[in-house]
């Protein structure tokens, strides 16, 4: 499964819920294939998306959104790994963390991450987070649907290929990106 394939499945399964998407090729590819106001494109801030998603989820627990999603990469998750402990502590009901794991820093030339040395799902479970592994697009589609009704924080580790799609740089003003997302959340939280 390519990252674009995975991103399309996520966008199709969750067209309404807030989605925080990690930096680099992941944000660029999602903006290219499924641009939407419910997406928060994090242009930098490596390691931060799970924390941003945790804050959103805590703030939107009483909202009508089913989930607050975070689309993270293995390299960025490793940088902010201790946030899993805070997520486990707080048990945000709607937080759904999807880790697209290709084992490399794909946006910077394909340098290897430490991903092969860590079982992300096991670490998450050790923190009190429901976690599973997915390797195929069919299984991923099923899990996206299944997770919709699960209560409590979830981590889904999804194995993807290491190829980047050709996309334009995402060079928009972050103030506008943030305000578009905030306005969407405010108008649709119910």
């Amino acid at each position, binding site marked *: 499964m390519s990252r674009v394939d995975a991103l399309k499945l996520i966008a199709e399964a969750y067209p309404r819920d807030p989605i925080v998407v990690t930096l680099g090729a992941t944000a660029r590819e999602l903006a290219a294939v499924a641009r939407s106001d419910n997406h928060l494109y994090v242009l930098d801030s490596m390691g*931060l998306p799970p924390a941003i998603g*945790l*804050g959103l*989820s805590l703030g939107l627990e009483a909202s009508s959104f089913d989930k607050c999603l975070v689309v993270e990469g293995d390299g960025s998750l490793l940088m902010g790994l201790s*946030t899993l402990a805070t997520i486990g502590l707080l048990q945000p009901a709607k937080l759904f963390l999807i880790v697209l794991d290709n084992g490399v820093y794909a946006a910077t030339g394909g340098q290897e991450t430490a991903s092969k040395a860590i079982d992300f799902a096991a670490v998450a479970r050790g923190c009190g987070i429901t976690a599973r592994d997915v390797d195929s697009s069919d299984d991923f589609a099923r899990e996206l649907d299944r997770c919709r009704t699960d209560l409590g924080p979830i981590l889904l580790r999804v194995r993807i290929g290491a190829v980047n799609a050709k996309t334009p740089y995402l060079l928009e003003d972050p103030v506008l990106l943030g305000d578009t997302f905030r306005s969407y959340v405010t108008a649709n939280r119910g």
Partner: protein
Amino acid sequence: MTTSVVRTGEGRSSPTERAQAVIEGVDAIGLDFVLQLPSSTLAAVIRHLESRATPRTFPVTREEEAIGIASGLALAGKKAALVIQDNGLGNLLTALNTFPLAYHLPVFMVVSRRGGLNEYNSMIHLFCERVEAIADAAGLRYWKLDGRVPIDAWASTITKGFEHSVLTRRPVAVFVDLMGGQP
């Protein structure tokens, strides 16, 4: 329970009075969440916050994680504050500049000062002496509460600092010298 600050007359305020003034200021904001990384100098403040159901007060693992969580809460329309110590400020600089500063999000923090006179920890000076210069370089707007500021002004400075963060849509810190070591 919040109590009134006991004044000490003409002299400098005591650490207990300063902590109580910080509590009054934080309480007056009407926060939904407090994210804390403790300092021995902040223990009384954190103990007070954790004794109440609102705001919801919880620990974070690193200062940059707190920046991320507080930014997410701001995007969700919630009022939040960080309660941290200044020698952790270095941890949050990249997160601060690449997210709430870049995206214009209000993130408010009460930061205890360490180092200087009355500091018992010999290893904390090197970073803490440079905190204001680092905050200036990082574009972090801040106000300082120390022995030169009348205790009557502490609580209102904290509440106004929060309001300034919301008004200007950017991170704001109030540096509080609870032990009297600064200047």
